[in-house]
């Protein structure tokens, strides 16, 4: 069964933790974009959702920091940062059989860690909450945080391998990347947003031209999109999974109170 949907959305903890802090003219387009994404996800009728989410110290520390880690459990829980995001902690169903199959497929192309116990933080739980999905989830956690994250082009390779593996699986699978876009998360610069970078990135992402970002220098990425800009890795993986298909922008809104250029998008897998 071919991939039935490829989506990406920002996951700012403020969306649920401080929903009324931004002016409504800023928050409304983001929530409307999420509502649009929810309709599209439901229309795609997936049996399972692969969520590609950045690490934010919920699972890994500087003793071991994998570039990519896929969950092989049948149950997870989250959010770990419940006071921060104001979502009650709850169990989330996993899908160990497909997780294992994906791990085998991804390992053909990228160096992958596996885990039978991953904690979900806002990166997974804010989107699940806003989308109201109750599907089995397979998490793929991507280091966008510390040390030496995988180069951007390897994240694309992960997406390509994900697609190849999903296409051999009998169930209906959708993928959702969460994170970004530009932000200086919880830093003194919080509220600064690289709108110029965000718009250029979205143009490439939606236009099937993610290849133009795969060798983007780290220094430049951080200067233009902040340390949080490293989270475009999750979007790049989604583009890879969609065969670099074109897509639709469901929302883009800089929201300083949520510290992020908030974007929601859907790609047409090809």
């Amino acid at each position, binding site marked *: 069964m071919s991939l039935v949907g490829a989506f990406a959305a920002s996951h700012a903890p403020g969306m649920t933790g401080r929903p009324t802090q931004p002016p409504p003219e800023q928050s409304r387009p983001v929530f409307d974009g999420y509502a649009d994404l929810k309709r599209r996800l439901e229309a795609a009728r997936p049996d399972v959702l692969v969520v590609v989410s950045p690490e934010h110290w919920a699972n890994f520390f500087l003793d071991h920091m994998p570039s990519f880690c896929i969950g092989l459990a049948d149950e997870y829980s989250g959010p770990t940062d419940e006071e921060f995001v104001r979502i009650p902690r709850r169990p989330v169903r996993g899908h160990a059989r497909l997780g294992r199959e994906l791990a085998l497929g991804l390992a053909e192309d990228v160096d992958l860690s596996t885990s039978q116990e991953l904690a979900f933080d806002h990166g997974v739980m804010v989107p699940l909450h806003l989308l109201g999905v109750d599907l089995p989830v397979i998490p793929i956690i991507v280091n966008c945080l510390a040390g030496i994250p995988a180069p951007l082009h390897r994240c694309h390779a992960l997406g390509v391998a994900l697609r190849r593996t999903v296409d051999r699986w009998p169930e209906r699978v959708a993928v959702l990347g969460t994170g970004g876009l530009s932000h200086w998360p919880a830093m*003194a610069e919080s509220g600064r947003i690289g709108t110029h970078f965000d718009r250029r990135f979205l143009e490439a992402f939606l236009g099937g031209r993610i290849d133009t970002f795969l060798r983007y220098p780290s220094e430049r990425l951080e200067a233009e999109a902040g340390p949080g800009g490293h989270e475009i890795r999750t979007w790049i993986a989604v583009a890879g999974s969609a065969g670099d298909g074109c897509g639709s922008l469901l929302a883009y809104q800089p929201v300083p109170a949520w510290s992020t250029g908030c974007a929601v998008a859907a790609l047409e897998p090809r």
Partner: protein
Amino acid sequence: MTTVGIRGRFALGVSLYQVQKLLFQVNRDPQVRGRFMTDRQALVAEYALTEQERRAVLEADFHALYGMGVHSLLLAPLAATLGLAFPEYLATIRGVTR
């Protein structure tokens, strides 16, 4: 310019390992968090901290912790746990007194 590696403020370093490990465990493990709330002194004694780090953790001094380079995503969830609203947290790390 290279295409890999975290740069800037959070570039790969070897300092701050113990203090960041302590905060990581407080954020992640409800039991450690409970000890942080009720028995902070004994918890902190289990980590090899500098005197400056020890004092900053005991006092939950976000301005000092941020200033020494502790990762902001270790600080923000802890601030929420301690009941510090996000705008207040930002004011604190920026050194704005209210």
